[in-house]
């Protein structure tokens, strides 16, 4: 059995309500189509403050300031029971928007982000307080520009203004005069994704106790396309992120698969580690600027806060299994094949029942399932239902169909094997991987033995195929290993037989005596 250790994880949020208001896909499209709409007029009144976002239980759970069990026990609705704001958690942080704008400049190597010089000076002091911000990052922050220069770039050269508290504090310039793939809005999306990915990688390095130079390879799995008009989507976001984090010994590549991307990227990276091709591989995904305020039309209509105000990011570090860290089992990988079909039943079976059956396990042998972990307080008002709960019910129903569970046990299965969704609707980000940090902690604490991470992607959104995709894998407690990444291969039954033989010998000897 090939296994790979999970050395550390990192999860960050970048609070960005002004970017959401101006450049989130839904408000942005509405501004073009109906600039005077009631929705756009009402939206600024439904905004969360940073303190509210940092005290919101699902956000605190994402960065590891709360455990999943604490979230499940927290009074609901979470939106009406805000806790103490926490910027930092065990896995990462919730970065305020002013610092994120400054951090995008740090991550910009083509002088596309211009900051107002007063703002730049102010933000330098704040960013320097962040424990993951090193000298090499701070040295990249520009001194800033005169307000008039920024205004001219916006008015005459296609730059997009960057706002804070309604005032312009900088801009994102276009990277080419005529190439639409290098237009300011595309560059802003890519820079926001890159910066959020860098932040997660910096926290990952800190959490692992390694140095940036220890990272051998980076696999990036966001949903952004990097490239000019001749090679839209050429990549390589991974290496661009590694450069800013100071990972001089790393190379990298990107893996894409919509929301199935992160699970697929983890499997890809684990394969490289298990085969000995790379040792310390970071898998990471920056977040999505266009998905900010994606469902805000429904939230505003129902008088709710527009909750989709954070760009999410994650990173996990995979290393050779030395028997000390929870592991990914590569023999447990689930695949949704082309021929499997797009029915939920076919997808659920391919990703859960089939790989477990291959291993001689039942659906009830998995302590926790982590499918799409969207926060239901975001999705329910938008008519999209409680996504994780629907997935747990599907797995329970499949267990009933396979004779592994009684029908009346479905609610109990959902309660015991599921968990509350706590992740922003950032497309690829909610898809299973946000639980890897919590699973690692729970396995180390002995509260669970086995978790299944499940990613599912809507490939049809790209209009090239009607197919969906999916990938899954098990995370388990480490077995005794010989240090080579493969276990010694002794099963429980074999141990039982050895013990019985020894007892029989003992009994025979006692009789002789």
């Amino acid at each position, binding site marked *: 059995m090939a296994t790979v250790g999970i050395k550390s994880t990192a999860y960050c949020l970048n609070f960005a309500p002004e970017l959401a208001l101006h450049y989130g896909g839904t408000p942005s499209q509405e501004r073009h189509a109906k600039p005077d709409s009631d929705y756009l007029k009402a939206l600024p009144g439904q905004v969360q403050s940073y303190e509210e976002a940092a005290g919101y239980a699902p956000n605190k759970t994402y960065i590891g300031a709360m455990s999943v069990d604490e979230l499940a026990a927290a009074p609901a609705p979470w939106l009406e029971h805000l806790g103490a704001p926490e910027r930092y958690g065990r896995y990462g942080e919730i970065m305020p928007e002013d610092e994120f704008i400054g951090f995008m400049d740090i991550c910009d190597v083509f002088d596309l982000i211009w900051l107002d010089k007063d703002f730049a000076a102010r933000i330098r002091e704040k960013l320097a307080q962040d424990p993951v911000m090193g000298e090499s990052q701070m040295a990249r922050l520009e001194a800033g520009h005169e307000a008039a220069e920024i205004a001219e770039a916006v008015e005459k050269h296609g730059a997009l203004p960057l706002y804070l508290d309604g005032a312009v504090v900088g801009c994102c310039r276009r990277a080419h005069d005529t190439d639409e793939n290098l237009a300011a809005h595309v560059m802003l999306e890519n820079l926001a994704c890159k910066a959020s990915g860098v932040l997660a990688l910096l926290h990952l390095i800190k959490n692992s106790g390694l140095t940036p130079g220890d990272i051998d390879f980076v696999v990036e799995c966001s949903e952004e396309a990097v490239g000019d008009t001749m090679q839209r989507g050429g990549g390589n976001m991974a290496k661009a992120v590694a450069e800013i984090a100071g990972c001089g010994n790393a190379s990298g590549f990107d893996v894409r698969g919509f929301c199935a991307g992160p699970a697929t990227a983890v499997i890809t990276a684990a394969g490289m580690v298990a085969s000995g091709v790379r040792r310390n591989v970071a898998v990471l995904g920056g977040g999505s600027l266009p998905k900010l305020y994606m469902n805000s039309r429904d939230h505003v209509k129902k008088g709710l806060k527009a909750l989709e105000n954070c760009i999410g990011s994650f990173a996990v570090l995979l290393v050779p299994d030395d028997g000390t860290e929870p592991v990914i089992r590569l023999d447990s990988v689930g695949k949704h094949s082309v021929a499997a*079909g797009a*029915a*939920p*039943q*076919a997808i*659920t079976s391919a990703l859960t029942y089939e790989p477990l059956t291959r291993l001689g396990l039942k659906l009830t042998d998995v302590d926790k399932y982590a499918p799409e972990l969207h926060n239901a307080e975001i999705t329910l008002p938008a*008519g*999209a*239902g409680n996504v994780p709960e*629907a997935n747990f*019910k*599907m797995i*329970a*129903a*499949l267990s*009933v*169909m396979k004779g592994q569970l009684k*029908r009346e046990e*479905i609610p109990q299965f959902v309660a015991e094997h599921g968990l509350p969704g706590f992740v922003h609707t950032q497309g690829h980000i909610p898809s299973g991987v946000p639980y890897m940090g919590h699973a690692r902690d729970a396995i180390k604490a002995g509260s669970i033995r086995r978790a299944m991470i499940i990613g599912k992607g809507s490939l049809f959104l790209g209009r090239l195929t009607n197919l969906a995709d999916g990938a899954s894998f098990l995370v388990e407690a480490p077995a005794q290993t010989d240090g080579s990444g493969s276990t010694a291969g002794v099963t429980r039954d074999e141990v039982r037989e050895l013990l019985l033989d020894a007892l029989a010998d003992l009994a025979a000897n006692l009789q002789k005596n």
Partner: protein
Amino acid sequence: MDLENQQRVKDAAEKVGADNLVVVLGSSDPEGAEIYAETVTLGDPTFAGPLAGVPLGLCVYHVFEEEMKSEADPAAWEEQISMMEMVLNTEALAASVKKMRDANSKHTL
């Protein structure tokens, strides 16, 4: 209902005639199912798509309604739909579409 699907329904109604068309919904959410049913009978309630102000009055069912289930191959139903039948609130889904159909469909099976 997204704008593309609204256009598909509109095109199909023009091509084969509203009287020869049945819309079968697979929505997992009763509220959503009701809005889809409203869209193909009264028109797009958000006034954003091709069916805005176009009351096609189509015959519309949810796949979990008995009239639809009885038409399905039992083996295919078992393989593709039975799991979701166990998961979803089939009665609420059927009721929400029936309510809209009874009130607004101009055509029947």
